[in-house]
């Protein structure tokens, strides 16, 4: 075993030399990731760093003067009521949106899984929302929900459920639901596709084994499908959470964050504060806070994901 010992010993030479040698040894690996890494650094690295930097400055958009203010933006944000309201509104937007997309996506995926007649038609049809520009979808939804010209009201009126057009997007209590519905519609196809892929990778034999073990359909779903889909669901919901958190087009197009800011999320507010009203520093500080939220969330989430023994 002397040989093994020889190789387990840390070899001589400085840390730096070791590092250089290591990189040389793995040069191909590093060369291959280099273009992507450099590209990202160049394109989004600067904006991200700039965002962090700006968050420490007072920087109105209509002048070129920047004043260093340290953490003042952060202090003010944490002391403002609006921040906590935005957190709550962002939270419900993300939770309801992701839950909706996940459940609907799951429902669709389960029904598309089998070898059904017209499978191609159904699968293609369910993908349609994915192919419509978000902004257009949002316009269409705004218009479907229009209190006077909208299809939704027309249907409800026809069914006699309401007597007068209701303005979902004009009611500060429920406007966010009107927007979430559109977001769910837009985001569901992607989830359905991922879940469908996940479902198809579950071996049929597991269901057969469970059937023989006496499992009813519901048991099979509960004890086979769900656990088997766990990692897919985790990854898909993580991505979806991130995407929903940072989504802008839909809310902006449908309500602009209103009425009375009731549909505003952090990102909408950042846009209003930073770009519309020109308070770049404040907007940047909000951006950093939003990022930190997502980052911590993602780390915890990935922990859960990898804890199951799955490799990253």
């Amino acid at each position, binding site marked *: 075993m002397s040989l093994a010992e020889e190789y387990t010993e840390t070899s001589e030479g400085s840390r730096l030399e070791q590092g250089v040698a290591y990189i040389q040894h793995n040069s191909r690996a590093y060369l291959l990731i280099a273009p992507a890494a450099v590209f990202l650094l160049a394109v989004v690295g600067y904006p991200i760093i700039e965002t962090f930097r700006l968050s420490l400055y007072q920087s109105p958009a209509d002048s070129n003067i920047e004043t260093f203010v340290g953490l003042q933006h952060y202090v003010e944000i944490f002391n403002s009521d609006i921040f906590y309201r935005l957190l709550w509104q962002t939270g419900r937007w993300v939770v309801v949106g992701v839950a909706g997309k996940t459940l609907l996506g799951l429902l669709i995926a389960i029904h598309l899984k089998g070898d059904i007649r017209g499978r191609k038609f159904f699968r293609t049809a369910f993908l349609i929302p994915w192919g419509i520009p978000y902004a257009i979808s949002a316009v269409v939804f705004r218009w479907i929900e229009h209190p006077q010209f909208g299809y939704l009201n027309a249907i409800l009126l026809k069914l006699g459920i309401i007597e007068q057009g209701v303005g979902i997007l004009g009611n500060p209590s429920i406007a966010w639901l009107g927007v979430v519905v559109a977001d769910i519609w837009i985001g569901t196809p992607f989830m359905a596709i991922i879940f469908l892929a996940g479902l198809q990778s579950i*071996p049929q*034999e*597991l269901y*057969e*084994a*469970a*059937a*023989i*073990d*006496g*499992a*009813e359909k519901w*048991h099979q779903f509960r*004890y*086979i499908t769900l*656990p*088997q889909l*766990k990692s897919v669901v985790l990854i898909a919901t993580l991505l979806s959470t991130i995407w929903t958190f940072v989504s802008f087009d839909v809310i902006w197009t449908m309500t602009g964050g209103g009425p009375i800011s009731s549909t505003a999320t952090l990102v909408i507010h950042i846009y209003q504060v930073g770009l519309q009203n020109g308070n770049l520093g404040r907007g940047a500080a909000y951006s950093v806070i939003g990022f930190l939220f997502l980052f911590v969330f993602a780390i915890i989430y990935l922990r859960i994901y990898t804890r199951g*023994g799955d490799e990253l």
Partner: protein
Amino acid sequence: MIAMLLLLGMSEVTLSNVSKVYDDNVLAVEDLSLAVEDGEFVVVVGPSGCGKSTTLRMIAGLETVTDGEIAIGGDVVNDVRPQDRNIAMVFQSYALYPHMSVRENMSFGLRLSGEYDDQIEQRVTEAAELLEISDLMDDLPKQLSGGQQQRVALGRAIVRDPDVFLMDEPLSNLDAKLRTQMRTEIQRIQEELDVTTIYVTHDQTEAMTMADRIVILNHGELQQVAPPERCYDKPNNKFVAGFIGSPSMNFFEVSVTNSGGRATFQSAAVEFTLDADIPEGEYTLGVRPEDFVAEDAGAYIETVVDVVEPMGSDNFLYLETANGSKEVVARVDSEYRPKRGDEIALGFHTEDMHLFGPDGKRVELNQIQRTESV
């Protein structure tokens, strides 16, 4: 009604004229009738695609029956769901639930049927002891070796105390050594539990060593149902003869001429006569590799040695008939070691030979006596 019979433990399995046609008009099983007795260990063998799995899956209720009836414990179960048949099945891929520990895998069925926790615990523990996997109970399937997974699959079947065990090539994913070991184990457990068992394999060694009776299928049709020795000694037809036994039986096409109760067998490599009153015509003669002897024993075949494979305890000879038309395999004592190219006369006793008619059916030669050399 079913439940009552099950309580009585009457769990013979009967297939009456069962056929299966898949959606795309594949006739997988044709007019199969079979009665498996209570407690019997039946092995279904046959080449790939012959309908073994289909048969088993119909019994399990995983495939619908196109025609005919399947009964368990005397009751027709064609329309009973798998959940309600009180069977257990072991799959080729084990189909263990990957996200459940060994214990959870084994107790899943019991839990679903609402057993009490301590009852479950006890049965799972017993089964684990029986299978010697007690110290693996908290592992996940992927942490186990193939053989261990196999045991868990078996354990999952056992704990449910089913009326019928169904196993579809349960050993085919194991390596040779483990396979041998698990073979003995399954037999031991089945004997212990005395549960009706239907076991599918395409490995004839498994069939030979494990079965009370072997069911041999080919192209969805039944070829023979009999105890292993009988299938080996008296194969019903040429297919069974070739399928059972390893290496396979050697076949030779021969012409038979009959002159007054004495039949003469003749081909390029063989010629002998014996007291047997059979119709003249073309026959197939079969001799098992292990029935060859190194000297003329009444009948013989002239051959040239091609390859000698020493197997430790015996040698396998691969030979060609003298005119080079046919490959012959012989298994001989390890002391007998011809060289490549040696010409040898491979003898056999005519009472060891098998004869099949033009339709492939076995021809009985009860009157065969020790042959006279030609």
